[in-house]
């Protein structure tokens, strides 16, 4: 079965000064529907760069990235938003909710981008908030919500576009362990019960038990080429012969 995201020989070079900086080099990676993949590693290791390229936010310098079967390397900048809108939902560390919109309106915004009518948007937004356990909070504004509630609104918003791929950047970093666990359970459900391909960038070791697969990225290099066994049968996998380097 075709992977939701296929990365082959991916290279990313930031043009800075005369020489430039190689952030990713020759990365190979597949992400499948129904699995939760974690990209782990310390700050500055290149995992967010990789996530950004998979999310069609940054462009690759070379290699191949196929998202939902479509090659994105070489696409024009102005073609990328439509791809993101169609296939990808984002969950951010800082929640990135719109503070002047209510929880319901935050979700409706995504539906509006998809061209859904106002009446249908309202109904669908309420449904999604119910699904993430915030049915009674639809009229609340982000300032009135806890960190966990905000992240759940963000998840509802990410789902509103009905994407096949969910990309989350440090979704539990701003949350306590209990709340973080709740959020991770929700993300796990997205992958295992709703069949989404979920990629989570994290350096929070508390959440590793939720992963189907973990790819370690460290100081720009894979930690070790050998396969490591982790508790609960989790698989830590390098990216094979390729190395990920960081500036």
């Amino acid at each position, binding site marked *: 079965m075709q992977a939701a995201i296929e990365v082959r020989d991916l290279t990313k070079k930031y043009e800075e000064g005369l020489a430039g900086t190689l952030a990713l080099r020759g990365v190979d990676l597949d992400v499948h529907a129904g699995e939760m993949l974690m990209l782990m590693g310390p700050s500055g290791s290149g995992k*967010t760069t990789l*996530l*950004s390229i998979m*999310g069609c*936010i*940054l462009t690759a310098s070379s290699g191949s990235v196929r998202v939902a079967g479509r090659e994105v390397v070489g696409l024009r900048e*102005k073609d990328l*938003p*439509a*791809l*993101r*809108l*169609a296939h*990808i939902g*984002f969950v*951010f*560390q*800082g929640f*990135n909710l*719109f*503070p*002047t*919109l209510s929880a319901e*309106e*935050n979700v*409706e*915004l*995504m539906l*509006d*981008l998809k061209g859904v009518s106002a009446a249908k948007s309202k109904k669908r937004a309420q449904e999604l908030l119910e699904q993430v356990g915030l049915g009674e909070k639809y009229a609340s504004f982000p300032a009135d919500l806890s960190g966990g509630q905000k992240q759940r609104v963000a998840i509802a*918003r990410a789902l509103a*576009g009905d994407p096949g791929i969910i990309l989350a*950047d*440090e979704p539990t*970093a*701003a949350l306590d362990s209990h709340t973080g666990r709740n959020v991770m359970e929700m993300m796990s459900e997205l992958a295992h019960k709703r069949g989404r391909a979920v990629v989570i960038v994290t350096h929070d070791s508390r959440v590793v038990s939720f992963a189907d697969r973990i790819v370690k990225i460290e100081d720009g290099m894979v930690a070790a080429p050998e396969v490591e066994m982790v508790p609960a049968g989790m698989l830590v996998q390098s990216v094979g012969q390729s190395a990920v380097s960081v500036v």
Partner: protein
Amino acid sequence: MPPLAQRNLFHDKVRLTVTLTGIVFSVVLIVVQLGLFLGFTTATSGLIDHSGADLWVTSKNVPYVEQGTAFSERKLNQVRATPGVADAQKIIAHWTQWKRHDGGQDSVQVVGINVDDRLEQPWNLVEGRVEDLKAPDAVILDELYKQKLGVSRVGEVFEIGGYRARVVGFTRGIRSFTTSPYVFTSFKNAQDFTNMREDQTLFILVKVAKGADVEQVRRELLARVKEVEVLKTAEFSRMTTFYWMFTTGAGVAVLIAAVLGLVVGFVVVAQTIYATTMDHIREYGTLKAMGAPNSYVYKVIMKQAAISAVIGYALGMIVSLFVVQGSQKGGAAILMPPSMAAGMFFVTLFMCVGAALVSINKVTHIDPAMVFKG
């Protein structure tokens, strides 16, 4: 579309107040300056525009109505004998001195007319009748200048150019562009007041016969009457307006002030919308990361500009109406016809939308990857 534009705009009330203040200031300044310009142009050419004539016969090289030079009144017969002329009357419009009861003197422009004819009669009378000018020494002036000339009521007697003058009526709204008010009187009185010879006149007004071609009559007059210029009313009006508004620089000054008002409004709105955009830059980055095209983001910003324009325009118009109303009793009227009020809406909208382009440029270059920075 969820109300992101409106909410962001009204969220920061201080900044919104600054934005609206800038727009109101700009609207009022532009309205006042353009209104003054309109008022001035109306005042400069009012005498010509209200004359009822189709053509003005003047001495050669008369650049504006206040610069008439005397010529023989016998030319009136030549004018009347020209084919196509239905009516022709001599008139005088010239400066002289008005002496107040306290002994002080003021410059006035005496307008001498044939009281029995319709041409160049005073308009908007609020007291007295035009026929009252038939009485000896009778004069009619505008109520605006009562205080300036020391007049309090009909019947009072003054001195003009050394001759007795009796006030028989008042008009309303007949302004002079200069500081010298118009004083209407009979042609004979005007000759006395201005020390003009009995066989002279300054202008001859011509009413063309029904169905006759004005230009044709004009050419006929030029061919038949020597040593004169014959101007269509509209042309003479334009010449007079142009002299006072542009040759003297008065009009240019108010137009420059109007443009400055536009610039000030533009700068204030650009600055505040830009500041609002920068405050919400992360949200715009999130919108783009979610997959919003640039046009969606532009719509949010433009909506903010348009809302600001509508509210600012409404408030500006309210203030302007008060200013316009208050100016009616003053020496310089500020005019605001409905077309100008409507036009100001589009000027305001253009100003605000144009100012928002600065912010548009900023959000166009947002890197959506910024949303990953915590």
